[in-house]
């Protein structure tokens, strides 16, 4: 089996939907800018790219049609580079990495750009034409459950108190602000007009301010806007290629893709999805959670992130070293490539051996990737 490696990672700044610096930027163009920069930074021969696999949770409107192909054309990649749009909601662009790794393993290509994009300013969650199945809704209404409600369910079932969620959110804000302050995020960001740094974070957040917020999804609930990831615009991309190709072209390899997994769970507790997926991926990698040096666990909500950390027995000190989505933002389709690329970059930065990138997915799923240092 041919090994797949991550040989490059770039993203746009993540900015608040509606009011941020990317609110007036088309998502296809945003993603093309990131892809173009990734290709330029890695200095690969663009003609070697087999396919652009672009993840997007609501692929319609300006991120519709086969947006992956359009991103390739906008980025002025050679016409020979193909493109496919991948949708696994929030897991879309991590799924793109998995597909690329699988293709490389079976010899179906050597170089893949795995991108992700979401403009939550311009394409609403649920899309422009939400038309649920009346039959499914009658039989299993939870199939269409709102994400905030799932966060409440997880908080309830795993007994994650509001105070715990707020402490986690505060820490996420602190870590992200410190990373920004120290310039640890600069390298990965592709500047676009005024969007030169991440815009969602709120470094001024205090425990008191968080405690004063009203519940966002249920009047008796514990989840607030402060303990949820904000609506965000952004794009990201990682370069996935065969280890052999990377060595031939002297690319700086960040990490090897050791194992991958997806798993379903009950839609009403979708936030717990990373647990089953991560367990599978860890087993496939032949390691225990204790062997992980770096974890990128997407913070869709503080409640589900905490529940996953507890269930998986993760060391909180190794989770989201440069902060997470509560502070950084969560542009649905773009998050998977960000956390996979980030986990790879952190593995290299920290000199650790194993990293896990994992996230929950609406509808009740989880996705996980185990990376190994080279």
């Amino acid at each position, binding site marked *: 089996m041919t090994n797949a490696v991550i040989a490059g990672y770039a993203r746009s700044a993540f900015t608040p939907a509606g009011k941020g610096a990317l609110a007036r930027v088309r998502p296809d163009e945003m993603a093309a800018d990131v892809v173009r920069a990734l290709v330029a930074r890695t200095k690969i021969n663009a003609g070697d790219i087999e396919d652009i696999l672009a993840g997007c949770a609501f692929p319609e409107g300006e991120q519709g049609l086969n947006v992956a192909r359009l991103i390739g054309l906008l980025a002025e990649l050679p016409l020979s580079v193909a493109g496919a749009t991948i949708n696994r909601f929030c897991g879309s662009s991590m799924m793109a990495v998995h597909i690329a790794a699988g293709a490389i393993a079976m010899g179906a290509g050597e170089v893949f750009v795995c991108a992700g994009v979401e403009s939550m300013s311009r394409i609403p969650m649920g899309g422009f034409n939400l038309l649920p199945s009346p039959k499914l*809704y009658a039989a299993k209404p939870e199939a269409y459950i709102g994400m905030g409600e799932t966060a409440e369910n997880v908080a309830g079932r795993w007994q994650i108190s509001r105070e715990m969620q707020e402490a986690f959110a505060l820490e996420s804000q602190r870590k992200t602000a410190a990373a920004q302050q120290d310039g640890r995020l600069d390298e990965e960001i592709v500047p676009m007009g005024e969007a030169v740094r991440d815009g969602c974070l709120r470094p001024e957040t205090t425990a008191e301010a968080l405690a004063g917020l009203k519940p966002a999804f249920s009047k008796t609930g514990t989840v607030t806007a402060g303990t949820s990831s904000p609506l965000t615009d952004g794009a990201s991309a990682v370069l996935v290629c065969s280890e052999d190709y990377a060595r031939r072209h002297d690319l700086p390899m960040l990490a090897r893709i050791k194992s991958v997994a997806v798993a379903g769970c009950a839609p009403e507790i979708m936030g717990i999805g990373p647990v089953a997926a991560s367990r599978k991926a860890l087993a496939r990698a032949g390691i225990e959670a204790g062997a992980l040096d770096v974890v990128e666990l997407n913070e869709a909500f503080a409640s589900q992130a905490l529940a996953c950390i507890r269930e998986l027995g993760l060391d909180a000190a190794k989770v989201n070293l440069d902060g997470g989505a509560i502070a950084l933002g969560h542009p649905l389709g773009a998050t998977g490539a960000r956390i996979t690329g980030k986990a790879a970059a952190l593995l290299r930065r920290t000199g650790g051996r194993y990293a896990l990138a994992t996230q929950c997915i609406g509808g009740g799923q989880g996705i996980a990737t185990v990376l190994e240092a080279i």
Partner: protein
Amino acid sequence: MEEIRSVAVIGAGVMGASIAAHAANAGASVLLLDIVKPGETNRNAVAQGAIERLKKMDPAPLMGKNAVRRIKAGNIEDDLGALKDVDWIVEAVVERLDVKQELYKKLDAVRKPGSVVSSNTSTIPLKELCSGLPGSFTRDFCITHFFNPPRYMRLLEIVGGEGEQFAPLHKFADEKLGKTVIQCNDTPGFIANRIGTYWIQSALVLALELGLEVEEADAIMGKPMGFPSTGVFGLMDLVGIDLGPHVNASLARLLPQSDLFHAMNRDTAMIGTMIAQGYTGNKGKGGFYRSVRGADGKRAKTALNIQAAAKGDLEWRPSVRAEIALVKDARNDVKKLLADSSKFGKYAWGVLGRVLAYAASLVPEIADGIADIDAAMRLGYTWKFGPFELIDQLGAEWVCAHLAQLGLTVPPILQQIGAGKFYRTNAAGALEQFALGGGYKPIRRAPGILLLDDIKRAQKPLLSNKVASTWDLGDGVLCFEIHAEIRHAMLNMLDGDVLSILEKTLSLVGKSYKALVLYNDDLREMPHKTNFSTGANIGMAYMMANIRLWGKIEGFIKDGQKLYTAMRNAPFPVVGAPAGRALGGGCEMLLHCSAVQAYAESYIGLVEVGVGLVPGWGGCATMLSRWQEDPKMPKGPMPAVAKVFEIISTATVSRSAAEAIELKFMRPSDGITMNRDRLLGDAKARALAMVAGYAPPQAQALHLPGPSGRVAMALAVEGFHKRGIATDHDVTVSGALADVLSGGKVEYAEELSETDVMTLERQSFMALIRTKESQARIKSIIDSGKPLRN
């Protein structure tokens, strides 16, 4: 310069910024300049900050979302050069002669030849502003005195500005800013503040002298006299207590010692103490009234003990509603209150008598005619009646006889009027005003101004009952007017009687006329507080529901649908001309017009969900059509449906006619009239312009999403319900609305007609009105005017 297209406002305080906002509402491109704040890197920070505040102010100074984009911020150090392209420069800086004059010199150096410059001063006479300045400047300079808030207060006092060079300014002020321009003489306080300040001072001083509490004074000096219902103390809180001393001081400085003002310019120590301690009214820590949080955490209204305050002690006590029998009776007989010997009667006449005498004594000093004075007080101080109209109501002889009690001499014009009236209708049905020196002269309306009141003076209605009438506007155009009063308020609710006159009117126009205008006015009310129509008479529906006359209710809905459809399909143009609120069935009436010419202050919306119902007279059907036709909407079955669902399920009401266009209660091709007095004339002109080759609009086929769309809307409501934003019954009502907007059990591939959707409207309406929760909502509105959130 032929017309004013660009305006600069210098001074971005509350008034300056609000004037800039209103000039932008009027369609002008606006430059707002202020100083460069020392130590600030952004040199336009002051003006920019003011523009940001405009977006948040309440009441909103801006109409619709486009207006603010027309305002550009700048500063007086870097941007005076830009004034070379500006047609009208308004100065609204601090009330200091030296500052203003220094600025004028700078303006004169850069301004465009032929441009006009005006000051928004309220306290400095024109001759002082002009002294020492070159004739080339003063020739183009005048005072334009706006009232706060400039968007809503219809008065614009102009001092000077009578030359031909000011014609574009007058036209812009009238037609674009929508102001009634009153030409004032260059006397202190001009018209409205001269009389208004005297009124406020008298009310303040006499309340202290006679030992009244603020609630008592306000109960008397408000509604019973047709003055603002806040009364004088409430009014001071509203406009800002700190404004008074500036105006008082300037009047004291400028008015001759013989002026009655001086006798009333007392007791300002209390005001000084209040201001010094930050009690400047609603904008500060409170004023004569304060809302204070009690031990139970609830806010309660408190009132200042003014007797103690006059001695320098500010103490507030729980506010008590004044229960004065005379005041309650005043609606029927205000003279009984005025002639009463109690302290309440003495207060009522003490203030009113002085104010009427003072106003009468100021003709011709402050204005040429009494009608200008009355208009200034109505439009600048929101009095329902001006002083001379009040004298006419009381009888001039009665007023003269009672002035003696106050030890006041009777002013010449009051002596001259004798037993006569200041206003009369001549033989031709035209209104005339009494002129000093005896005799009457006609009140001329500017070209384009058509008032239904004038029409009514000169003719009898073609059709009429107690709630609606039809008038002949001439040129083949009829006017259908609703005048349905409920509990002393012109709510103009729609019932069978209103609809029957409309039905007969449609038939009459079809036979013998060319076009129809739907219009009414309530000139004694602030235009933005008036009602085109507040919708179907829910009181009647409630009664019928109580005795389970379901067939009757459904019949009423069917009749309305039939009539509105007939109106839309009529072979002649029907122009809706709303001002103020057009809600529910009133909104649906407009949705079925060939065109709408709306007063800028039109508040249009489908608010049925507030009473637990859904629009039943085609509101859903027409709104779906309009949103589906919009080429800017994303494709597919849901976007238009979701938008209409959002608008109706949240009972969204436009905050201006401009916003009504954004919400599609009006079409982009519909017209907006800024000057209330021009609305009827504009509507008539629009109707006439549509007559040649008129064809009624074609009904649109609708593609609706069916049951899947119904689920999508249910999901949204479910989320709001869990968050506690939607109540239990909201879920039911929204569900019934979703039944209509989704098209029921339709397949997306099938076409529906608007009539099909109206059938769904009727079904949902009937299902809802049978629920006890919707009935409880209706009852709550009838009983208290407040929506029930069950």
